[in-house]
């Protein structure tokens, strides 16, 4: 038997010999030379008016003020030091982010202009740029539109206060045809700047905010035109009253019922949830932010841990007065996925506003009157319901309710958003 042990030993030794792969040393670090350090303003002063090749061994230091993450910039970033700011055109996309503190060796780099905006050409982030630190954020320069200097402030991170868009209702850019949008931003004195947004930006299809406020971004120029590029949509804060005093923000003015869930609450404004089912709270209406949505929506799904659970789940509106209108209609966005029961819509004129709707109130099923329920259960795209005429239901105290039903064998996911009743 000893011989058998020997054999097994040999086998295991053989195995050990094959357990490793080829090995390689890490290649050496390519040192980026420093040479002479100059300021960005000094560098821009060297621009001759036509393409200028920098032959000396210069380096510039600075902080990155834009990045490509949201798609509004492509193969370009802006950087600035205390003396000025400049645009870098990148050899390839990616690698520099807002807050990066960097050094660039610019020997043999070409400086050029595009519509009078000075830029460095073909910067190779991997080979010419040294990152010294991250998250060294620069505070934007707070100024006004008419104070912006075409030469001194170009490429600079700026913040404009008390400004508003003039073309309400439009989107930032054309996300369908991927073409750049140019939208006029004005202050209350009528000074304007064009907000340029790429069709590839992930906020290109957002509607322009209607209020007045502050906006932060990169100030650029095209010849003598003042332009402005948003670097982060969260830096657009136009939610105060406009110059003319009209309401900004929201969209609820004049609507009989308005619920967009943007506040992340199911119950704000007097909305209520009622649930019964087999597995606690599975299938209850809830705030959801993940799929196909632009901000929070209401969602119901009876699917959990690979199973479906039977449930009946109501989302009930507050009571509202329809007698104020002569031809009210209901419109909302909806989307469904996975197979299961259709979502049902009810209206009641005698609901008490607080009881469980399955036990109290006369609820009229108006599911079939909604012009457009989402039927494509493969896509997450919200569709508009179209206008559901509520004229037959004009009464002083009305409520609507969405009823979701799931069974133990199946159940769809339903999302509802922007529930509006208006005239």
């Amino acid at each position, binding site marked *: 038997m000893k*011989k*058998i042990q*020997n*054999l*097994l030993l*040999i*086998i295991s*030794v*053989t*195995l050990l*010999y*094959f*357990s490793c*792969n*080829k090995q*390689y*040393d*890490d*290649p*050496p*670090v*390519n040192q980026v030379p420093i040479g002479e350090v100059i300021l960005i303003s000094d560098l821009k002063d060297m621009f001759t008016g036509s393409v200028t090749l920098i032959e000396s061994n210069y380096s510039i230091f600075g902080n990155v003020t834009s990045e490509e*993450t*949201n*798609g509004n910039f492509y193969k370009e970033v802006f950087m600035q030091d205390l003396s000025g700011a400049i645009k870098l055109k990148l050899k*390839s*996309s*990616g*690698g520099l*982010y807002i*807050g*990066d503190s960097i050094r660039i060796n610019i020997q043999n780099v070409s400086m050029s202009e595009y519509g009078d905006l000075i830029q460095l050409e073909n910067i190779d*982030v*991997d*080979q010419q*740029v*040294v*990152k*010294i*630190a*991250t*998250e060294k954020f620069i505070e934007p320069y707070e100024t006004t539109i008419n104070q912006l200097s075409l030469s001194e402030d170009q490429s600079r991170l700026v913040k404009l206060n008390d400004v508003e868009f003039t073309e309400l209702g439009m989107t930032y850019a054309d996300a369908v045809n991927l073409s750049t949008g140019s939208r006029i931003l004005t202050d209350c004195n009528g000074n304007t700047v064009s907000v340029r947004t790429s069709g590839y930006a*992930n*906020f290109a299809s957002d509607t322009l905010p209607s209020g007045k406020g502050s906006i932060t971004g990169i100030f650029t120029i095209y010849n003598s035109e003042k332009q402005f590029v948003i670097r982060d*949509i969260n830096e657009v804060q136009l939610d105060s009253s406009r110059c003319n005093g009209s309401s900004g923000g929201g969209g609820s003015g004049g609507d009989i019922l308005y619920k967009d869930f943007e506040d992340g609450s199911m119950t704000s404004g007097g909305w209520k949830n009622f649930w019964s089912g087999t597995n606690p709270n599975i299938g209850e209406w809830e705030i959801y*932010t*993940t*799929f*196909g949505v632009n901000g929070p929506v209401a969602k119901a*799904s009876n*699917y959990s*841990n*690979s199973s479906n659970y039977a449930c009946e789940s109501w989302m009930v509106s507050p009571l509202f007065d329809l007698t104020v209108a002569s031809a009210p209609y209901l419109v909302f966005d909806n989307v469904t996925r*996975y197979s299961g029961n259709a979502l049902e819509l009810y209206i009641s004129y005698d609901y008490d506003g607080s009881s469980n709707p399955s036990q109290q109130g006369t609820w009229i099923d108006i599911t079939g009157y909604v012009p457009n329920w989402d039927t494509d259960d*493969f*896509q*997450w795209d919200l569709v508009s319901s179209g206008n559901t005429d509520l004229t037959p239901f004009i009464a002083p105290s009305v409520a609507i309710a969405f009823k979701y039903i799931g069974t133990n064998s199946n159940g769809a*996911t339903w999302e509802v958003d922007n529930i509006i009743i208006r005239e």
Partner: protein
Amino acid sequence: MILNYFKSRFIFPLLLIFYFTGFKGQTDSSFVVDTVKNIIPVFTTTVDLLDNELQSQDISGLLQSSRDVYVNQAGFNFSAARYRLRGYSSENTRLFINGIPVNDPENGWTIWSYWGGLNDVTRYPETSFGITNSAANFGSIGAYSYISALPSVKRTGSRVSYASTNRSYRNRAMYTYNSGLNNNGWGFLISGSSRWSDEGYVPGSYYSSGSYLLSIEKKFNENHTLNFMAFGAPTVQGRQGIAVQETYDLTGDPFYNPYWGYQTQSDGSLKKRNARSRDNHKPYMTLGHYWKVSEKLNIQSNFYAITGKTSNTNLNWVDANDPRPDYYKYLPSYFVNDQGTLSGNQIIENQEQYDNISQQWQQNNPDYTQLNWDLMYNANYNNLYTQNNIGNIDSSFTGRRSKYIVEEYRLDPRHYGFNTFGKYDFNENSSLNFGLNISNYTSRNYRKINDLLGGDFWVDIDQFALRDFNDLALAQNDLQNINNIVGNGDIFGYNYDIHVNKNELFSTYSYNKKRIESFIGINASTTTFWRDGKMQNGRFPESSLGSSEKQNFYNYGVKFGFLYKITGRHLLSFNGMYKTEAPYVRNAYVSPRTRDLLVPNLSSTEIISADLNYNIRLPFLKARLTGFYTQINDQTWARSFYHDEYRTFVNYMMTNVDQIFMGIELGFESNITSTVQLTGAFTIGDYLYNSRPVATITRDNSQELIALDKVVYLQNFKIGGMPQQATSLGLKYNAPKYWYAGINFNYFRDIYLSPNPDRRTAEAISAYGAEYPYRDEIIDQTRLSDGNAVNLFCGKSWKIYKNDSYIRLGLNVNNLLDNTSFKTGGFEQLRYDASDIQRFPNKYGYMYGRTYFLMLSYLF
């Protein structure tokens, strides 16, 4: 130096095995010299020319070992052209090693390399082709093969050999020892080998493989024998990639390999590194019981376990340039506006860049033609980055975030089973074969970081989803580890198990009389499979985590065979089979990496097949002529490819794929004189698609379906990837003084590329009218030129009478005329641009040029 390293790694264990040769059982006095034919070494030249898929189709090792007059020649001479027996892919072959079924339950394939290097043991299987009366299993329509590795069955004694070659490996050392059964009923069979090359035939490829087999037999009495066997072949390979014709033309090298590049070492030297390595090791183990219940009843039962890993690496990158040298934007053709076609009027749009890049490629400047590892490392060294919002504790991490990594795709099988099969003889004319197989298979599928290439971390998010949707949750690959920071060896991206449980029963009744041999067989099986996700994917939070619904299939089959001996020298036989088979799980999910969504309309596959054979066995002529006709209907077809704009895998699924295989095989061996033999093999087939399948196209990082139920107009397209016509003629001289020499001429025709289904849809050409001149370029199938190869072989053996041992020397030269213009295969890229079909042109692989295999062996 590297070579020495490899040698020491692999030769050392062999020496150990040598050392242990004192053990000897009883010597077998009936030792017979192998016939000259069988001295021909078994090897293959097609390793890794294409994908894993095509690799799996290489069962030439099995074919060559056949004694069938056609198949033996076909296996030996046609394998270089990726010949497939009757056009079937390898799931239609059933292979057993000591009773273990070795077909992969996920896709049905038999991958010969999992036991490569054990040639001494696998050399003489019991193999039959077509529809046959198989003993261990119902069998299929391709081949049935049973390799026995019992000490009592194999030739006893030792065999040691060394081979030098210039193919995927350069050296092979092999040692096998079989004690036979000693007086106490014990027997040991051990075999081990090493195959290695620092660089193979193709630049940048390498090979290092070991193999081992241990088989212990204990015969308790006439009725009971136990056997334990373990074997495996740990193999590390640097792979060859095939490329577009433009790269071959520019570099002047039909074996240009885009997978490798130089990496500077600490001593300043440059070392070739291959980004695509394969590292496989699947140990097989079995405990078998051989039971002679009575003179009439024999039963063999086995417990078996197949474990281990299969691993393939690839580059991945984020926020950085595509590192692949043959990326279409880096080739000169990118600067040519060809008006939608190569045959159109070509306009060079940027002459300066075009000239520069062409020149660099023509000069084989590795900065242009190969990967640049130093650049990738330096990009990583320099990418200081702060990742916020990590996990649920909202921490942050600052370090060098890798832009480039080597990632590793793992598929680790855990396959356990029990089978039993036997034979009952009713009388001398009739018998019954029967069997049962219960198999429980799980594979662990995941991706891990193989090498951060000098960086500190990688963030497990999908960049494309992040940019597209601006939603952090949606971009997560693992919702339960938000912005997961991963390092070397960590799992990321996807992680799921596939389960396949299969139970099979079969029985075959045989009736043989003087002039008749016949059988009729049936089988029934149940198959259950499901996916069990280990990660919750942000794009598919409700269908990625946990067990999916189980899919059940119930299948059955019938077969029969009838052979009539017109005389003892003229035999006529007819065989037929009808069966259904569960779809393979590999094709069942539209995107198993991310979710458990099933392919629509998944159904069982139907196989209908028949063959008619005429055998001649004259003293001077052995020949077989066969006609065959097979339909394989309702197949599911699945392929994934990496789409570099989507930065993810795109999955193509087709259901309702029907195929027809029909053709003729002819093989003969004729002894012109007592020393000169003429051999020939000829096949002509017609292997066609026979339906209009429907396709579903998805991508891994979006819930959006790219296409659903798209009709693919594939009817009458040829099944690609193999010659549909092949001819071999050989002449061999067997000298009385124990040497031989021979030559074979081989000719191949009708090789087609597999059609990209999406190009054969109404949508693909909808933008172009019938008069569009380049419409045919989108639709038509590519047929490759005919090819030929001449092979030469010779050998001599010596007997040393003193100790009754033998020395043998054999040499094979394949492709003697060094024909390097024979494209043996390739594929249409699944990514295509209908408005510019040559933007993503076909990729081709060439047959190796002249190669040799020289082997010296000593048998004692």
